[in-house]
């Protein structure tokens, strides 16, 4: 054993001050009204260690999906740096990009949109194998293997079916199989069960947990539902209007949220039994407007604890005990 043990391991994913700003209503589409800059992701910094599962939690418009798209290079960051295994994503091109595509995968929200309706399940699953140069003779075996991995019983029966012949739960497993077929290191799951009925949700979530453990995957789970994030991830990052509000162990966040926004969010999560608090939420009315965020702290206009400094200065994400919080109170 050497001293190096005490040094923290190199993160698999490292995001430094990532930004995704885009103009809405350019001169050409100006007929629709405003032309302004939306900061979908605005200065986000975090790291993910190999094998870690992180939940990206927030309301619609908080930038969690944009963050996921940045991580998969489906969108180019307009600022900051994202590294995967030490390589900057911004520089990836050609064969290097192709290698990255094999290592980082996405599981989609709506399974019915995530597969081409004109393709059979076989053709859908063959596409990544073709791109990775797997010889045709090996593909069928790999496809069957992947479908077994996501626990679709008797996978052969699905191969020649079209997407509309499958149920939502079955199709979401196919989408998962496609993501896993090249044995990636890193998976981003974007609200993978929000379109599914409650009774089949649990099945998909269980498969996800299982596969992740079995393949030692590093995973990001994007969701608006803290209860689901808690079921899948040991660590949670809470986002609001393009910024991180709080980042820490999920259990700590559930039981003792620090940031005023997280407090409201945790209190608002509905629970499926009658004995629960009906107290008013500690948050102002209104909704976040990504086109027109307040100055300083983006949450201050709904924050019950806001004071002068919040309007002047955006709080940095600072360590506070087991986690990091972006609030002037910590």
């Amino acid at each position, binding site marked *: 054993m050497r001293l190096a043990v005490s040094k923290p391991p190199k993160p698999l994913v490292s995001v430094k001050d990532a930004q995704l700003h885009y103009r809405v209503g350019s001169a050409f589409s100006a007929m629709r009204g405003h032309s302004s800059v939306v900061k979908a992701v605005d200065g986000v910094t975090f790291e993910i260690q190999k094998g870690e599962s992180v939940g990206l939690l927030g309301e619609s418009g908080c930038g969690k999906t944009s963050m996921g798209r940045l991580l998969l290079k489906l969108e180019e960051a307009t600022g900051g740096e994202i590294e995967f295994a030490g390589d900057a994503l911004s520089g990836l091109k050609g064969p290097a990009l192709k290698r990255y595509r094999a290592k980082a995968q996405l599981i989609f929200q709506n399974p019915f949109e995530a597969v081409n309706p004109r393709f059979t399940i076989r053709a859908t699953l063959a596409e990544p194998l073709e791109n990775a140069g797997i010889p045709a003779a090996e593909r069928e075996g790999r496809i069957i293997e992947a479908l077994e991995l996501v626990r679709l019983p008797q996978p052969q029966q699905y191969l020649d079916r079209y997407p509309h012949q499958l149920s939502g739960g079955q199709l979401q497993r196919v989408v998962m199989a496609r993501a896993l077929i090249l044995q990636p290191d890193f998976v981003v799951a974007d609200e993978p069960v929000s379109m599914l009925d409650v*009774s089949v949700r649990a099945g998909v979530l269980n498969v996800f947990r299982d596969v992740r453990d079995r393949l030692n995957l590093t995973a990001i789970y994007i969701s608006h539902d803290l209860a689901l994030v*808690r079921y899948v991830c040991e660590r949670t990052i809470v986002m609001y209007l393009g910024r991180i509000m709080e980042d820490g162990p999920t259990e700590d966040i559930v039981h003792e949220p620090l940031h005023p926004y997280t407090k409201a969010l945790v209190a*608002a999560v509905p629970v*499926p039994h009658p004995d*629960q608090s009906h107290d008013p939420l500690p948050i102002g009315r*209104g909704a976040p407007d990504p086109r027109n965020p307040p100055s300083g702290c983006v949450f201050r206009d709904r924050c019950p604890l806001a004071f002068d400094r919040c309007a002047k200065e955006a709080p940095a994400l600072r360590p506070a005990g087991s986690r990091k919080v972006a609030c002037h109170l910590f």
Partner: protein
Amino acid sequence: MTETLLSVRDLKVSYQVGKGSIDAVDGASFDVPRGSIVGLVGESGCGKTTVARALTRVIADNASITGGQILFDGQDIAALPEREMNALRWRDIAFIPQSAMNSLDPVYTVEYQLNEVLRRRGGLGRRQARARCEELFEMVGIEAGRLGDYPHQFSGGMRQRVAIALALALNPKLVIADEPVTALDVIVQRQILDQLRELQSMLGISVILVTHDISVVAYVCDRTVVMYAGRIAEAGPMDAVLMEPSHPYTMGLRNAFPDLKGAASGVLTPIEGAPPNLAFPPPGCRFAPRCPFAVETCTTQQPALGMVAPDHRVSCHRADEAAKLRQEAARTETWLADA
């Protein structure tokens, strides 16, 4: 003292699809007591929205009410001539839709749309209508200054408040809310539910809240009706149904639902399989193909909606074994496909 406002008896609604027909609702019976919120809960395609719309008798062109009664205040509105039914709409039965964005007319101001109801349906004069508009906006917590705004100028949560104001405009006896918070984020969702509950108890009206989310039911409802594949699975007081479910489907739903306040190590259990195709429903109990407790009778005979406790009805052949089944249902292994 629970007096019944609405009593649905053996309601059947069919859709004409091509040459055949599908019974989207096949014999639904439940009661709505005065001054209560009843949650109508079920998965997509279970017929809950069809029931809600059937109560207004404004249903899809290819749908029709093919049987049963809808007793509203003692009167069967399913059999009412269209003219009389139309007189009843909105004055007695109002509706809050899922997406207020699409259900408010984009080319008119919100005030115009409130006025339309107040003056054309409520017979109010110009000045009275204006006063009522302001009153309604105050009730749902929007400044009166925004009456002249167009629907697209409001945020999603605000639009839903407008929809609530619109529904309450004529002091109806019953408000049907079809997934009123589904499209909203949790925080706004909670605020809207609080608002709805507050106004409901203040005005003493009855509400039918259609939802797929049992935690919404748990938060605001007094009673619950659980639907599965066009039929009522279980109906009763909310806590009884959620805490001591007597239908295996309700038990399964409870297991599948994540609970933030529960233990961290809890495991979610899915119900294997998918709801039946209503064009070819199974002959017996519609849940039997997915039910771990199904016995032979379940696959051949339709269970009737029977009483398991005062005011608590279940349609299950093994309802009298409910306590035992509940214990078994709590174990994950029970629900595994090959168990």
